[in-house]
């Protein structure tokens, strides 16, 4: 046991940026945070001018129900709290529905440098852009000299997702990510997966893996989030469960809804599920495998996962999903060897070698693990190098008004 323990601490570390709260970031960015969609153009102008910044160009923050305005405020705060963010500049319009003063107070409480500009108060677009550029430049100068430090792997929060899936996803790339998830959990790290829509037909399997079993609070919560999502669809007259698997799925070889669901769930690995995080929630001291109640669509789940505090995401694809997120590196694991060959400038790892019989799931799993250590320590993912991370959004529940 002693040897194992030593291997754990000596074997797997990464070079990260230590934050005032003790967490480690894989990136050292100045986040420009529009508190409302109406501030996006000013925020974009600031980001274009100032190196070292990224922007969260979402489409929310006004003319929404109080519940959603609270949600948007919470998510923007947790994005700013992410360990990949070194400092933040809030770009407020002045009359928005979100609580930009709470944003400022909660972000300042983290000990990170935080500034705010208010477009209406400053006298409009051009003046706000000038003030914002000055403020962002000052923040970049304050934080860009920070050095990376060695951090144990247990400080990692990994997010998981699959998108643009095909026949290979459930057999290759998702299995590889499942292998990595188990390994990280065993090393004391945190893994978060979502895509509640994909649990349909497999929720009983997840509930059986919950700490306390299917009838315990975590198991019950898993059934609850699936039911909640189905009821939202039903409220506008749609039944998500009917007709699964689809005729296309059956033609492709999927024989039951359980098989379809498991093909997606396998990327979470096999460890017990410790609990369910709401969409807006961040990981504080949670360890092990967690679910985040997030939909499957990229802009919303990537935002939710970045707000969780994940330093990176591992993303499984078959047909080739190219996008990333402004402050969270996204490692693309491609299960389809033909897609990998065609899109090698977008895909970070070829899991298609499993389908061709050249490598095993465990071999590619180890390759993925080696790659994530490099990415955590600063190596760019392919989408980062191409700046393919502009689209993001916040998952809201109610109508716009």
């Amino acid at each position, binding site marked *: 046991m002693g040897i194992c323990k030593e291997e754990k601490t000596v074997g797997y570390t990464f070079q990260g940026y230590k934050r005032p709260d003790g967490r480690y970031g894989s990136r050292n960015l100045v986040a420009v945070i529009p508190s409302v969609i109406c501030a996006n153009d000013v925020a974009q102008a600031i980001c274009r001018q100032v190196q070292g910044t990224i922007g969260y160009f979402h489409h929310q923050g006004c003319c929404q129900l109080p519940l959603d305005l609270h949600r948007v405020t919470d998510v923007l705060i947790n994005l700013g709290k992410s360990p990949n963010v070194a400092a933040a500049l809030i770009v407020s319009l002045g009359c928005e529905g979100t609580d930009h003063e709470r944003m400022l107070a909660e972000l300042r409480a983290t000990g990170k440098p935080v500034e705010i500009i208010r477009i209406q108060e400053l006298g409009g677009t051009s003046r706000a852009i000038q003030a914002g550029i000055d403020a962002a430049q000052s923040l970049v100068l304050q934080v860009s000299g920070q050095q990376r430090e060695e951090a144990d792997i247990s400080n990692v929060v990994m997010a998981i997702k699959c998108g643009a899936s095909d026949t290979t996803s459930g057999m290759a790339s998702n299995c590889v990510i499942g292998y990595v998830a188990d390994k990280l959990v065993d090393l004391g790290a945190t893994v978060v997966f979502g895509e509640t829509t994909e649990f349909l037909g497999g929720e009983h399997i997840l509930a059986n893996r919950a700490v306390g079993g299917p009838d315990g609070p975590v198991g019950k919560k898993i059934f609850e989030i699936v039911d909640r999502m189905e009821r939202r669809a039903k409220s506008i007259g749609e039944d998500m469960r009917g007709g699964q698997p689809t005729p296309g799925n059956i033609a492709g070889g999927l024989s039951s809804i*359980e098989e379809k669901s498991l093909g997606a769930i*396998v990327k979470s690995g096999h460890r017990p599920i410790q609990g369910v995080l709401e969409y807006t929630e961040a990981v504080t001291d949670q360890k092990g495998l967690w679910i985040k109640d997030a939909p499957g669509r990229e802009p919303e789940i990537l935002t939710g996962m970045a707000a969780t505090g994940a330093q990176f995401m591992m993303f499984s694809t078959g047909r080739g999903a190219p996008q990333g997120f402004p402050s969270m590196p996204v490692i693309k694991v491609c299960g389809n060897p033909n897609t990998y060959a065609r899109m090698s400038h977008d895909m970070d790892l070829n899991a298609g070698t*499993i389908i061709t*019989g050249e490598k095993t799931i*465990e071999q590619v799993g180890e390759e993925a693990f080696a790659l994530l250590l490099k990415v955590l320590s600063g190596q760019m993912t392919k989408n980062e190098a191409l700046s393919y991370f502009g689209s993001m959004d916040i998952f809201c529940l109610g109508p716009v008004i």
Partner: protein
Amino acid sequence: MEELKLALKVDDKDNVATIFAEQITDGTCVEVRDKRGNSEIIPVIGDVPYGHKIALVDIPKGSAIMKYGESIGAASRGIRKGEYVHVHNMEAMRGRGDL
């Protein structure tokens, strides 16, 4: 050298494997590999399209079809080792509305 006809078994508890090869017809031998690369040659019973499943052992009627280490349904009749497994001889146990 003959081209590899590969079928993958993703979990040790599985009793089916998924074929990743074209032109698998009745009697074709496929190489079934697990996640560590251990392999077994199995002759296929029936014509099996790319991405579809075969049985790795005899599965009696009513027994669970196991993939990913979990039940994905039950055999609706007895299934022989090597036989094509799909909606014609297995049935989902969830989301059917009649159970």
